[in-house]
């Protein structure tokens, strides 16, 4: 005779280990008790695997079992039943259900657990409590069994508790792992709900369905018109305070000593999941380990997840669920991409193509994950669920299985990753974060567009546009023939290191994209992006970046050309760094290139963080904003005075001293009259831009003529003329003149807060490069 009783979670459930969830518990208890008055609601409880749904149901069963029915009203009889056992035949299921019902009811009514399953004896015993009709139900069940009519047997069994209820009790079903009911042979999905429907609707029999894949269940509820009847409760990790209380309790039981200060962090580490807490405490206990500090705790955790209990837990799941090795590897690799690398996927097709499996196999894998609750499928929308421990496990499985790393190596990486993320990175101020954020936004907009390769190649860019101003560069860029096709980026993760892998894969951004609109593995391309923190990019930084990229390519199993490397640099670079980057195929972009890149996609440069010493201006500039004015002047006598007036206004914003105002005015006058005199402009107009930022004023004077006269003609020499450029150089800190087929741009810059009173100390901007000199 088979053993009876659900030999599952409820036998291992320890009520004393249950902490927190007071709110959920009280809502559920109230709903169950209200069944006695016919106003009880039913609940659907959902959440990721291991989070504690079963514990919640079992705790509820205890609470309800202990509750006394008041005022002669019937008492709620909590019937816990888990569908997770592989009882896919409805006859087996109904048989099992009946056994559970009879045995649990007897215990509810005060009997000891009987030593063996004897239905006849149990029926007699129940009759003595006033519960009649048992024998009839059993007889009916036997008839159905003999006829092999599973559905009728199921209807018979499931209805029994309701017909047996009366003045003494009313059944409250606590159905665990309800998603498994969809797997019953020869029973249509949702049949269970159809059978239960009238009872649920009555309000007398509150029901609590729990499952980690609510998508299927809610779909079934909708089909049965029950969706509105159910309230949804999502179960997440324990709150820190509950989790800490649980630590205390577990540690006391196992006589393990963990300093209280480490507990909140340990809770976070395990996602507030009680099962993991128990496993880790047991791990520590069995190893007889002392936990004096965070590092030891991290190490013990890493040991557990790579070779101990936590590892075993998930390993068994994967081994049982995917007995086939190849398929298991595929599932693990896939899940790792999703949960660790945060590959965002929300469609079935995307998931299957990422797996690189046939449609049939892909669906099998997804379905298995769904049953574990690692995947939520609502209509066609997929959501993957995981927790920190599973992520670490997947990392381990991947590193060991795919990269052949030893367990201790992986454990070390896990510990290191965690420890290195406790403090914010130095030197990554607001400016850096903003730059990264804007690049992230930019990448999201790429969408297979083609852009000039020059945007990504600083060496070439400087060669071509060195000494030219922005407007000129913009014009030049538009004509640039060498273009590169950007991928359609499906995800960009920031702070990649925070997700997985530790400092070895420490990039500012990692973007996943596809080279064609076809979302398939062979089109996959990954962009690793770093925004340099250092002002002057050195060869070492490039070397370091390349090394990390190689590891990333190895980890992702990507061919070399499918990993794109991109560094956003700051003001300057060592020539050696540029050489090295070009040798390694690393894209480099200077802030100027980035600005152009952003403009192409309709984005603006992030505001610079105001530096207190460098913000002499009032509100607008000290808030880090850039003010920009544009002016189009007709080429006619004295119109440069207007330009000077506007310059005066702009300078007033920056609250610069009178002398600097004069310099700005003079400089712009010189640039204007030069444009008037020498450009031979067809349009008869000169375009001016004044850009005021916290640290500098930039002036652009653009004409569409032949070019700036930078030297004196003999005739001019005779007339003491041709001083323009010389004066401008004297007046401002930096000048660039860019002449192209479409005209000339003079860019003049005045540093604010610097030594503007002494313009003799000309500062040159690398990347913008120095002016080309007299020609």
């Amino acid at each position, binding site marked *: 005779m088979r053993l009876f009783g659900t030999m599952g979670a409820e036998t291992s459930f320890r009520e004393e280990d249950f902490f927190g969830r007071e709110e959920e518990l009280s809502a559920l208890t109230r709903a169950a008790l209200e069944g006695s008055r016919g106003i009880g609601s039913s609940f659907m409880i959902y959440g990721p695997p291991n989070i504690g749904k079963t514990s919640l149901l079992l705790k509820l069963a205890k609470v309800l079992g202990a509750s006394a029915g008041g005022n002669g009203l019937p008492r709620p009889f909590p019937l816990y039943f888990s569908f997770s056992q592989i009882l896919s035949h409805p006859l087996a299921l109904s048989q099992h259900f009946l056994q559970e019902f009879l045995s649990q009811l007897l215990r509810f009514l005060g009997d000891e657990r009987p030593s063996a399953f004897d239905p006849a004896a149990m029926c007699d015993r129940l009759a003595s409590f006033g519960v009649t009709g048992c024998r009839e139900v059993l007889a009916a069940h036997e008839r159905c069994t003999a006829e092999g009519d599973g559905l009728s047997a199921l209807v018979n069994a499931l209805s029994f508790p309701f017909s047996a209820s009366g003045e003494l009790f009313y059944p409250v079903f606590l159905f665990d792992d309800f998603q498994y009911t969809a797997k019953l042979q020869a029973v249509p999905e949702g049949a269970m709900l159809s059978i239960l429907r009238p009872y649920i609707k009555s309000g007398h029999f509150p029901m609590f369905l729990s499952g980690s894949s609510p998508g299927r269940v809610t779909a079934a509820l909708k089909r049965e018109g029950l969706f509105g009847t159910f309230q949804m409760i999502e179960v997440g990790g324990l709150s820190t305070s509950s989790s800490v209380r649980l630590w205390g309790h577990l540690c006391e039981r196992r006589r393990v000593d963990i300093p209280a200060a480490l507990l909140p962090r340990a809770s976070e580490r395990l996602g507030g999941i009680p099962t993991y807490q128990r496993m880790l405490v047991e791990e520590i206990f069995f190893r007889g380990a002392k936990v004096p500090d965070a590092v030891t705790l991290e190490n013990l955790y890493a040991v557990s997840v790579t070779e101990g209990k936590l590892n075993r837990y998930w390993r068994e799941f994967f081994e049982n669920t995917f007995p086939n090795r190849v398929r298991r590897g595929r599932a693990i690799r896939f899940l790792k991409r999703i949960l660790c690398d945060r590959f965002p996927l929300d469609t079935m097709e995307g998931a299957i193509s990422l797996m690189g499996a046939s449609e049939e196999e892909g669906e099998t894998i997804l379905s298995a994950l769904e049953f574990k609750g690692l995947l939520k499928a609502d209509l066609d929308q997929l959501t993957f669920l995981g927790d920190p421990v599973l992520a670490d496990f997947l990392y381990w499985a991947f590193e060991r299985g795919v990269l052949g790393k030893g367990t201790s190596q992986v454990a070390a990486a896990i510990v290191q990753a965690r420890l290195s993320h406790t403090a914010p990175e130095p030197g990554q101020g607001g400016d850096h974060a903003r730059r990264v954020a804007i690049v992230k936004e930019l990448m999201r907009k790429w969408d297979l567009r083609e852009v000039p390769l020059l945007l990504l190649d600083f060496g070439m860019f400087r060669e071509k546009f060195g000494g030219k101003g922005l407007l000129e560069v913009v014009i030049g860029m538009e004509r640039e023939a060498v273009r590169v096709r950007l991928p359609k980026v499906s995800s960009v993760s920031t702070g990649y290191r925070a997700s997985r892998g530790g400092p070895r894969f420490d990039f500012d951004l990692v973007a996943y994209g596809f080279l064609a609109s076809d979302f398939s593995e062979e089109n996959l391309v990954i962009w690793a992006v770093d925004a340099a923190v250092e002002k002057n990019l050195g060869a070492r930084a490039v070397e370091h970046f390349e090394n990390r990229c190689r590891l990333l390519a190895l980890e992702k199993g990507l061919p070399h050309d499918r990993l794109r490397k991109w560094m956003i640099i700051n003001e300057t670079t060592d020539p050696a760094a540029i050489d090295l980057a070009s040798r390694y195929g690393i894209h480099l972009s200077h802030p100027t290139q980035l600005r152009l890149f952003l403009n192409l996609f309709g984005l603006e440069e992030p505001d610079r963080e105001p530096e207190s010493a460098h913000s002499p201006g009032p509100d607008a500039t000290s808030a880090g904003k850039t003010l920009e004015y544009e002016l189009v002047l007709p080429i006619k*006598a*004295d119109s*440069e*005075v207007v330009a*000077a007036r506007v310059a005066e206004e702009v300078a007033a914003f920056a609250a610069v001293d009178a*002398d600097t105002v*004069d*310099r700005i*005015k*003079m400089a712009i*006058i*010189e640039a204007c*009259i030069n444009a008037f005199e020498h450009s031979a402009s067809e349009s008869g107009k000169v375009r001016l831009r004044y850009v005021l930022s916290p640290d500098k004023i930039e002036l652009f004077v653009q004409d569409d003529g032949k070019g700036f006269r930078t030297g004196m003609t003999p005739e001019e020499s005779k*007339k*003491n*003329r*041709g*001083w*323009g450029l*010389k*004066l401008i150089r*004297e*007046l401002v800190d930096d000048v660039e003149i860019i002449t192209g087929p479409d005209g000339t741009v003079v860019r003049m810059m005045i540093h604010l807060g610097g030594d503007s009173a002494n313009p003799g100390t000309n500062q040159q901007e690398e990347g913008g490069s120095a002016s080309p000199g007299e020609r």
Partner: protein
Amino acid sequence: MSPYRTIETREAGDTFVVCVGGYLNNLLGEEVEKVVRAKLDDGVRRILINFQGTRMVNSIGISFVIGIVEKVMEQEGRMAFCALSRINCDLFRVTGLAKYVRSFETEKEALDYLSGNA
């Protein structure tokens, strides 16, 4: 004359004083050159340009000033500037004017220098 330009002349002893107001560009420069040349033709050999009212200068304006200085030196006259703003001082230095013509803060100092009292 444009509102950006004014020119006043007077004689202080045997020194011809030109007060330049507004924006010293080609037009005003030409104007200044014209009045100075006329005085040189009249035999005046001491010229003082007062830049008190000069709010802006451009390179063409400066080129006229250079032309004036050359003329005066050709005629072996003496010349001085006064009341130059700091920026104009710089510009005159850059263009080399400062090497040939002395600048004074006040008109009096300049007149004293030109009359040989300084």
